[in-house]
């Protein structure tokens, strides 16, 4: 196949050629970046919580009146006892929050008490002796809390825990040599906290982008939250009995003490719903970018079909002449396929520049990551295939132009 005559012919269709190339270039830029955004967002969706998600649910319980610390402690104990009686319930823990939860507690972590710039930032969980067991965390070193270590924390009490269980991610950050167990750290406290246990994975409470560099860094302190307004219960159901337990648990709580509030919208959530809500933004973004990619590729493909069809219509006579002079169906087909390939190659060449330009802008403006080259390569392949696919039908039609066309007026 000779390229020279194709180029010569393209020079007579400058506008159309430029438009197709430009469209391919812009499409490449958008599709690559959109695919990258989709991938980044979807990778959030698969972030591990570390907890036994299929069997967990949470009850965000608010007291109907303001309790003193002592009253709150008493009511929590009654609630936990009531929840344990519910058929299908295996374990209960009174907590401040849970992974992917609605609000976030986090503390700066330092290695020394007077250190000004923090070593890291950890999500701060408070939990009783049932926390690790109820959430189904995997303790990979050390021990769980003992019942006598649990302290009650009332309104604006600063309780300094003596011990903590931390996630492996946090242990690795504080003690990269892997010897964190038994060592100490400070969490905005004036006395050191000793690491008595390490759990494999425990996600932070938040999923926001500011904490991305502290991913998975969490600490559990032996504290029971006895605030005046309420707390959260994490309940683990026996396998396969989540629904029954979720149905019965709030009833049991209200039967025991009706002076409480469990929000009908988000007071009672299975962990599947917790995860669903936490990543709503990411999922939405991925869906939107996905729709835009698909429609964009369809429109670009359709545009190529339209313009090539027009060219074929315009050149029927020339095609007829070539056929009359001995060109085969295949020659004509190849002509249009090659023509499209040349335009597409020109388009993707400009497109690569646009892609990185757009990416750089997104990086500076929205702290997106740098686009890996694989995305651009994949985008190029997609667009070249799209171009070839789109041109196929008009090219086939062109190849079927009979040689007799040469004798007809245009």
């Amino acid at each position, binding site marked *: 196949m000779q390229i020279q005559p194709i180029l010569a012919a393209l020079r007579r269709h400058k*506008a*159309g050629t430029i*438009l*197709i190339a*430009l*469209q391919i270039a*812009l*499409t490449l*830029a*958008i599709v690559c970046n*959109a695919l990258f*955004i989709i991938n980044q967002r979807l990778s959030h969706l698969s972030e591990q919580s570390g907890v036994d998600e299929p069997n967990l649910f949470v009850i965000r319980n*608010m*007291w*109907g*009146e*303001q309790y003193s610390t002592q009253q709150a402690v008493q009511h929590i104990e009654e609630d936990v006892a009531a929840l344990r009686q519910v058929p299908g319930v295996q374990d209960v823990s009174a907590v401040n929050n849970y992974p992917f939860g609605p609000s976030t507690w986090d503390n*700066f972590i330092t290695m020394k*008490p007077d250190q*000004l710039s923090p070593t890291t930032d950890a999500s701060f969980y408070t939990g009783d002796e049932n926390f690790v067991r109820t959430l189904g965390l995997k303790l990979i070193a050390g021990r769980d809390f003992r019942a006598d270590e649990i302290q009650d924390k009332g*309104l*604006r*009490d*600063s309780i300094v825990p003596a011990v903590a269980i931390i996630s492996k991610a946090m242990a690795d950050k504080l003690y990269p040599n892997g010897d964190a167990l038994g060592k100490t750290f*400070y969490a*905005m*406290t*004036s006395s050191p906290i000793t690491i008595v246990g390490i759990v494999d994975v425990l996600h932070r409470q938040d999923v926001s*982008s500011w904490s991305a560099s502290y991913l998975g860094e969490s600490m559990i302190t032996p504290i029971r939250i006895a605030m005046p*307004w309420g707390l959260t219960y994490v309940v683990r159901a026996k396998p396969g009995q989540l629904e029954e337990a979720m149905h019965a648990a709030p009833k049991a709580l*209200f039967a025991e003490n*009706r*002076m*409480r*509030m469990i929000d009908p919208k988000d007071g009672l959530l299975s962990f599947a719903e917790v995860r669903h809500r936490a990543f*709503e*933004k990411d999922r*939405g*973004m991925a*869906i*939107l*970018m996905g729709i*835009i990619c698909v*429609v*964009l590729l369809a*429109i*670009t493909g*359709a*545009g190529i*079909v*339209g*313009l090539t*069809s*027009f060219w074929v*219509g*315009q050149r029927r006579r020339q095609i007829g002449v070539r056929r009359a002079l001995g060109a085969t169906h295949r020659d004509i087909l190849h002509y249009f396929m090659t023509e499209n390939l040349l335009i597409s190659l020109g388009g993707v060449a400009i497109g690569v520049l646009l892609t990185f330009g757009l990416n750089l802008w*997104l990086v500076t*403006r*929205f702290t997106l990551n740098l686009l890996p080259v694989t995305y651009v390569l994949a985008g190029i392949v997609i667009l070249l295939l799209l171009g070839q696919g789109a041109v196929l039908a008009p090219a086939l039609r062109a190849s079927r132009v009979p040689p007799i066309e040469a004798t007809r007026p*245009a």
Partner: protein
Amino acid sequence: MFAYYSQLGLRSLRRNPMLTALMVMAIGFGVAASMITYSVFRAVSGDPIPEKSAQLFMPEIDSWGPQQNEHGEPPGALNYVDAMALLRAHQASRMTLIYQVMQTVLPHEANAVPSASTGYAVTADFFTMFNVTFQYGSGWSTADDDARAADVVITDAFNQRMFGGANSVGQKITLSGHDYRIVGVTRHWDPSPRFYDVWSEAGFDNPPDFYFLLNRALDLHTDNAGRNSCRGRITYNGWDQYLQSNCVWLMPWVELDTAAEVTRYHQFLEAYSADQQRAGRFAWAPNVRLPDVMKWLDVREVVPPESRISLVVALSFFVICLVNTIGLLLAKFMRRAGEIGVRRALGATRHEIYAQYLVEAAAVGLAGGVLGLLLTTAGMSGVGLLFEPEVARLAHLDLSLIGMTLMAAIFATVAAAFYPAWRAAQVQPAWQLKSN
């Protein structure tokens, strides 16, 4: 002539139905994607209080110092000590302090179950500063602030929920075990974003139920339900020590009506910080800010990045659709080169050809706009799938959006047709006639 061209244009839509459909779809999808994302962007990026946003300022004082603040910026709220000092100084024509609270409401019937309510502890100026209008009654006075009155202002929605919408001024309501007297019921007032609380939350959550006196809330140790941020070692124990800590949680707002007042207030903040430095409370030079509402929303990055990125991507998508349309219009117009040649030979000027094809493009644009409107309407119901519920609830289709959809489609298509129509007008009549 215009009517005739419009007729020709509409008729030609039916010719090459494939090409026409392609163009209409490209424009429709492009404009719909842009409008759906724009409706969300518009909802989150607007001025929440346009009549006053340039007179309301958020004083910021660096109480953490260069080693603990946020990259040189002061924390976005005040600790109790600084907040009270500013309030007592009376240096602005109006000032309020705000923090978020959560209270339980217990109806008076027996067997009633409590329900949750959210609100703000504020000072008297809140209502006048932010132009809150009242359905019944009014806010309270500064004298009430000093008297630590058990007054509460409730919102129309809360009044509906608790009193069926009747005039409840003078009635009693029990919030978390304490009785309050209702002094006012506001009209619907839900600035979006809720500019005065964007430090504490995203700014698009559900509106509050009530506002009560900050002084009394502090007396009752009503804890902050919003954000709280501390630095260094946390050593306080109990409420009183907490108030003296470096934790920031109170959101101050001042009203300053002239540029001179703004300068003066800024100087006051500097002088206050310098005093604190001299007194040994701050070990650093004054570092203060005084942004107005729009600047503050910008600083807090209230517009979700998702909204911006999706708008940018959707607009780029629209641009590609237009490039596509230019190509297709070119094909559509040039296919009729013979016809143009005849018309030119019969005396039509270039100008007339040009006008005719632009009108024809406008017809394509109109069709695309109508399709875009249908797609936008359909897409608006899917906004909940794409954005968080708090943000999605703000996006809605109104007359201006409908107008914009149609206008954007028509103008964009006509702009896209400039080049193809120019090419059509350049057709040489003699050449066309000869080749036929």
